[in-house]
């Protein structure tokens, strides 16, 4: 068997609405291209083995883990990272605001992946319950929160009336 050679391949990918072009090695993972070449830091590298979901993106509209895809495979496709979620003026969308209000993060490393998966779940039309949210987020691991506030934040974004986190204060105009 001959020693395989690295190949450089041209790709063009629409990332968060902007067309990006580049040359990638045939063995570059999509997450590495997004972060290292494009400086898109939404997808995080957590486990590198497809377990933690920190690198979750939407790829041609489908939720995937970008550490399990080659950059070369993304040629002529569309990628959305967590950076696509906020409004154009930079203000938080409803789901992001719920994560903030319900304290759905601590260290924040899993958050962009959680937001992508939660967005996919909320847009899927599936019934939103405590159970369906926990099951829906199964591919995303958080080692800080114990998930309680993340689940509440997603349910709140779906319009559920959920308990505020411990210590939350109501602001009332005087």
């Amino acid at each position, binding site marked *: 068997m001959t020693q395989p050679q690295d190949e450089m391949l041209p790709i063009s990918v629409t990332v968060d609405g902007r067309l990006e072009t580049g040359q990638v090695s045939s063995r570059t993972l999509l997450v590495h291209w997004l972060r290292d070449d494009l400086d898109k830091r939404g997808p995080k590298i957590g486990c590198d*083995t*497809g377990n933690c*979901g920190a690198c979750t993106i939407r790829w041609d509209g*489908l939720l*995937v883990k970008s550490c399990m895809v*080659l950059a070369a495979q993304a040629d002529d496709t569309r990628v959305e990272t967590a950076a696509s979620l906020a409004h154009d003026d930079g203000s938080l969308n409803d789901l992001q605001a719920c994560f903030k209000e319900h304290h759905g993060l601590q260290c924040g490393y899993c958050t962009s992946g959680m937001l992508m*998966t939660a967005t996919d779940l909320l847009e899927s039309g599936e019934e939103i319950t405590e159970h369906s949210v926990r099951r829906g987020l199964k591919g995303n691991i958080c080692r800080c929160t114990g998930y309680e506030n993340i689940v509440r934040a997603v349910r709140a974004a779906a319009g559920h009336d959920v308990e505020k986190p411990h210590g939350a204060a109501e602001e009332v105009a005087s």
Partner: protein
Amino acid sequence: MILPPLRYLRPGSVGDAVHWLTHIDGAIVLAGGQTLVNALKLDLVAPTALVDIHRLDELRSIAVSPDRTLTIGAATTYAALAASTDVRLTAPSVASMAAGLVDRQVRNRGTIGGNVCLNDPTNNFPPLLVALGARFTVLGPEGTRTIDADDFFVGTMTTALGNGELLVSIEIPPLPRGARLVHRHLQVGADSWAMARAVVRIDDDNGVVVASRVVVGAVLGSPQRLRLVERALVGLPTGGDLDGAAAEAFDRESIETVGDVHCSADYRRQMSKVQLRRALRDLAKGTPS
């Protein structure tokens, strides 16, 4: 982690894919990549080239023929199987299994063809497809051939696919009238790794078991048909003590299990029997497949 050096090839047709698989020494198929990409990171495999078949539309169709045979393209994702009305109506066990696999992200990429061609002993589709009597259509340098499920799965991580051959589609014949099928799994968590799997199918004619298929997964050489259990069930009244007959026959089967971080080999063997018995009780209760 950095992948080893390799070529990336995207064929425009299944014919091109077979051509590359045949003529490039060390080329392998990249389907959903949900196992393969990790295996590459860990240096568990060392291909010279990946032939990416995921975008080939001809491998992604789902069709039902007038006799209700379901034909699934090999690169159909778990999410597409779970969402397909055709699959849910003609092979509900396939749809429900696909819906309960791993997580949302993996279901969007992982394919039924990748699942069966890897034939990892813990994979869930191989035992189910054996119980359903599926047939596998394969394209190779010599043309097309069709392989029965019993012959397709050769042993642990091994199938009957030869050099240059590509799995094109999986055909699932309709269950005969009166047949019922139940699959049962002992998993580490919901939608997770299995410690034991059992699939039981009973073909009933006038209240008597006329044929049966009993398959276990998560054992060495999975999927394994338990022929002694199958024989013990045939001829019994469908409403009779199938559970007792199966349990007695199970103890005479030669089943090899291994221990891992989740459980010992002996526990796995015991739990295979428990899953089998529970599946038979589900059948007795008339739980739909």
